[in-house]
């Protein structure tokens, strides 16, 4: 017998089932089809400015920095300022996200590179699918638009998110993923990112900049 059949057989033996019970199968397929929500913290169940404010507080508590701009057109300048203020080089890598592409990067002196990172970039910008105010998390999906390597290899990661894509809870984000990729479908990678990389492995003292970005900067586009 194959290992697969052995293991499934052993599970069924222990549970005292055959695996063919209609009721069990129905219960499982119902749950997979309907994906019932459980307990959702009240904290995130706010809207408008309160939701944005909660996102900001939570992201900052996770040691990200957050700035707001009125429109997408202001994003390049805002990022250029951020880099200058932190004495970072005026270079920036990005994928081929259409929202980012449409921004007026030529208004800045930034040196823009495109495509995934090979590990030698200092700065990168990605566009988030959304954000979760509950914990100040950004939700990133993989693809050539926003390559996953940009989330982890650069020292400084900047994430652009539209204010309208900031949700109160994780469940709202899954609804959006299903809308985009179909029920049961997923991009190769969904990353929830909450603050910059860190480690507490030396004497349980939290230090920033373990393997991923040392800085996480979020630009919220309000329009």
């Amino acid at each position, binding site marked *: 017998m194959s*290992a*697969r059949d*052995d*293991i*499934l057989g052993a*599970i069924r*033996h*222990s*549970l*005292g089932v055959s*695996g063919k019970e209609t009721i*069990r199968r129905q219960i499982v397929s119902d*749950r*997979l089809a309907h*994906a*019932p929500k*459980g*307990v959702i*913290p009240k904290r995130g169940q706010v809207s408008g400015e309160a939701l944005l404010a909660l996102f900001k507080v939570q992201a900052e508590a*996770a040691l990200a920095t957050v700035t707001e701009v009125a429109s997408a057109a202001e994003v390049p300048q805002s990022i250029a300022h951020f880099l200058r203020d932190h004495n970072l080089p005026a270079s920036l890598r990005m*994928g081929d996200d259409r929202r980012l592409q449409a921004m007026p990067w030529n208004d800045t002196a930034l040196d823009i590179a495109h*495509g995934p*990172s090979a*590990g030698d970039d200092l700065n990168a910008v990605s566009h988030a699918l959304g954000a979760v105010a509950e*914990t*100040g*998390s950004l939700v990133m999906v*993989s*693809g*050539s638009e926003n*390559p*996953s*390597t940009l*989330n*982890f290899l650069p020292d400084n990661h900047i994430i652009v998110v539209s204010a309208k894509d900031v949700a109160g809870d994780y*469940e709202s984000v*899954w609804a959006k993923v299903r809308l985009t990729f179909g029920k049961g479908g*997923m*991009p*190769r*990678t*969904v*990353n*929830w*990112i*909450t603050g910059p*990389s*860190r*480690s*507490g*492995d*030396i*004497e*349980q003292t939290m*230090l920033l*900049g*373990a*393997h*991923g*970005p040392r800085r996480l900067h979020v630009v919220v586009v309000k329009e």
Partner: protein
Amino acid sequence: MSVHSTSPDFKKNAARALGDAQLQKALGNVKQGFIDKREKATQKLPEFEALRDSARDIKNHTLQHLDLYLEAYEQKVRASGGHVHFARHAEEARDIILSICKEAGARTVTKGKSMIAEEIGINEHLETHGITPVETDLGEYIIQLRHEMPSHIIAPAVHLNATQVEQDFRRVHTHLDAKRDLSEPVQLLTEARGVLRERFLAADVGITGANFLVAETGTSVIVTNEGNGDLTQILPKTHIVLASIEKLVPTLEDVSQILRVLARSATGQEISVYTTFSTGPRHLGDSDGPENYHVVLLDNGRSAMLGTSFEEMLRCIRCGACMNHCPVYHAVGGHAYGWVYPGPMGAVLTPTLIGIDQAGHLPNASTFCGRCESVCPVKIPLPKLMRHWREREFERHLTPATVRSGLGLWGFFAKRPALYRLATGIAIRAMGFAGRRKGRFQWLPLAGGWTRNRDLPAPQGETFQARWRREHKRRAA
């Protein structure tokens, strides 16, 4: 069994740990680092208790339908272009991983933190076959340099201090300037980042564990703070997920429930920095990500736990809260437990994996203070399960003869009140008389286990029941 166990020597291990001043100092970090932060994080979320119940219920539901969720999961992984391999035991899992690595022509393999990888001893196996495994979680990397096992399931190097890490880095990173300053922990972190960055970029295969497997979508989920797990899985051509079968959860909503209790219970964070959901190999049009995606599903005794009282242990989400709050763990640290899983969860799980004859001490070395159960995010009744192991040991006559005969004697009298009254009356009178001058004993025959570390207060000299009956006779008269 795969990894060598020193669990039978628990007492010796514990004695050594208690005498190790450096270790004792490091263990202080467990209390300071975790307990208050967890408390604060749970206080901040009014729904935390409800979420614990929800997490428990989700895991119970999944375990009751595990065969069907595994089938659904498997189908989804295949549909997304990934491969699923089932492994009955550690040896089978090692062979599957080795053959995937060989097929990929792998010379070096990066690894995210995985307790299952420790459980099957994959590193030694790969090394034996000429493949270099590189641990990338900072704590795991440090203990790999020292050829040690993790001493904590989420803080593998919690038994070490910065000076020891510095010494190891100087010993191993010989290509770096010998005069470099490593006096600050952040310098150690930066050095590890630099060294491991090259390893990430050079690796042929990346192996990660999984905190969860989602049946709805065929997704594996990992949770890290460092980002090492992500670099491990997106940079090499091949990503192998190694997970035990009880990691299944039905849906993305279900995993979101459990994630809300995981980090809060573990480190006191509201959520870890990186929560990553991976589904299959890179998609058409993706510009990065692995080209091959394999999942190795390990049983290794878990299917046999279903339907027994130990089924509840399969809810465990490996947060480490039980050991963070355990007075025994605080006293002796993780290595004393002698195998992969320490603390209360290890005291229950280890005997199922390496046998109660090997791990018999572990479920006995508990005061049953119940603090572990009170903080467990999925409400596993750990003391009760440890007691179940004690019952099995007792049935199999594995309980030490001295304990057995002592208890037998106590049980004999406890069942016979008249004899109890007679025997205790005499004994207590004698003890009371012997202890009347000092009020306590510094040594007493047969009580060496007690008096080695503390005095034994002397009894007052007459039993309560004797005095009560005497006084009541008088009152009645």
